[in-house]
C-alpha cells in the first residue's frame, strides 16, 4: 500500500466518525458511519475500504463498545462498494441511490443476526424502538429485529451513496486521478 493510500485510511475513518456532528446539526435519523468506508473503496479499491471499515469500527468501539461486532458489516459494505465502483454506479444519483438502497437491504440482513444474538436488538435507541414497533405489529422476535435494522439502514445507505457520489463528482479531476479507482467509479475512465 502506497503512503497516499495509507494516509487515506485514517482520513476516511475520521470522516465517518466526524459526520455525526453534521447529522446532529440537521437532526436527521441517519448514521452515515459507513461514508468513509464507501468513499475509500470508491477512491482506492477494496483493500483500503476494508482497512477503513476495520479502523472505523475499532475507534468507534472506544466510544461505544457495541460497535465492534458490527465490523463484519463494514467489510461487506466495502466489498459491495467495490462492486458498485467497478460497475460505475457512482456516475449519477440515478444509479447511486438504487445501489445504496440495495446496500441497505444487505446491511440490515447482515446486521440482524449480530444485533439479535449479541445485543437482543438494543444496539441504539432508534433500532430498539422500531423493533418494539415490529413486535407490536405481530412480527416474530427475529422478524421485528430485522424490521428495526431495515428501517434504520435502508435510507441511511441510500443517502450515504448519494453523498459519496456528490463528493466524487466535486473532486477536481487532478485530485481524483491520484486515486486508482476514482475515475472508474464515476464512469469517466
Amino acid at each position, binding site marked *: 500500500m502506497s503512503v497516499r493510500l495509507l494516509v*487515506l485510511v485514517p*482520513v476516511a475513518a475520521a470522516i465517518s466518525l466526524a459526520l455525526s456532528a453534521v447529522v446532529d446539526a440537521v437532526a436527521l435519523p441517519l448514521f*452515515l458511519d459507513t461514508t468513509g468506508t464507501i468513499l475509500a473503496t470508491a477512491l482506492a479499491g477494496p483493500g483500503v475500504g476494508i482497512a477503513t471499515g476495520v479502523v472505523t469500527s475499532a475507534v468507534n468501539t472506544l466510544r461505544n463498545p457495541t460497535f465492534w461486532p458490527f465490523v463484519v458489516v463494514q467489510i461487506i459494505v466495502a466489498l459491495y462498494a467495490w462492486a458498485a465502483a467497478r460497475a460505475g454506479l457512482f456516475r449519477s444519483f440515478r444509479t447511486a441511490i438504487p445501489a445504496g438502497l440495495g446496500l441497505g437491504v444487505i446491511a440490515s440482513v447482515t446486521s440482524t443476526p449480530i444485533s439479535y444474538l449479541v445485543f437482543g436488538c438494543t444496539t441504539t435507541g432508534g433500532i430498539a424502538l422500531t423493533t418494539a414497533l415490529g413486535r407490536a405489529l405481530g412480527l416474530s422476535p427475529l422478524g421485528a429485529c430485522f424490521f428495526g435494522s431495515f428501517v434504520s439502514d435502508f435510507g441511511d445507505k441510500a443517502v450515504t451513496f448519494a453523498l459519496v457520489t456528490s463528493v466524487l463528482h466535486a473532486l477536481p479531476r487532478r485530485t481524483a486521478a491520484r486515486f486508482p479507482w476514482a475515475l472508474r467509479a464515476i464512469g469517466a475512465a
Partner: protein
Amino acid sequence: MTRLHPFTLLALAAALVALAWLLPAPWGAAGTLAVAAVLALFSGAGLTPGASPGSTGTGMSPGWRPGLVVLRTAVVTAAPFWLFLFILHDVSTTVALGLRITTMVASVVWLVAVLAPARLVEAMVAAGWRAGTAYLFAATLSAVPVLKARAQRIVEAQRCRGLSPRGGLGPRVRALRALALPLILSALHEVDERALALESRGLVPGARRTPLAPPPDRGAERAVRWALVALCVAALVWRLA
C-alpha cells in the same frame, strides 16, 4: 495498572468480554462483570469528562476515587441497554443479556481509561508490527476531534450564510449536503500533505521503526496473556461439549 503492558490490558478486556458470552448466564456474566467493576474501580486512572476516545487516560493516582468516575461512565453507558432490553424481552433474558453487555461496556471503558494510545503504538512497533499499522489507529484517533471541530465551524459558517438545517425532509437533506461536502473535500485535500509529511519522516512501505520508549514486557505478563487465551479456549470447549 496503567503500567501494565498494553497487550496485557487488551488481553484482559478481550478475555472478560469473551468469557461473559461463553460462560452460562446469568452467573458467568455476573462473575465477569464483578471482575470488570473491580478493575474499573481500582484502575488508578480517571476519565476526563467530554474528552475524545483515546485521549481519556489522565494522571495516575493511587486509590479508588478516579476509578469511581470510570465505573460511573460504564454504568451510564450501559443503562440505556437495560431499558431497551426490559422493553423487548422477559426478565431472565434481560438479566442475561444485560450482564453480558454491561461487562463489555465496563471492560472497554476501563481499557480506554488505562491504555494510552501512544504506549500501544510503541508496544506494537516493538512487537514487530509495521509502523503503518500502528499509524492507522493513532492517526485516526488524532484526526477525529480535528474533523469534528472543523464540522462544527462549517455548520456555524453555513448558518451565517443563511443555511437553515430545519424544515421538511428536502431542506434537511440539502443542508446535509451543504455541510458534509466541504468537510469531506477539505479532508481529502489533506491526504497529499499528510503523505508528504510521512514520507519526509521515513515512513515508507516496508520500513521498520525503532520505538523510542517501548513498554517493558515482563515474562509474568506474557504468561498471564497465554493463561487468558487458554481460559477462553477451555470455556469454549466446555460449552461446546
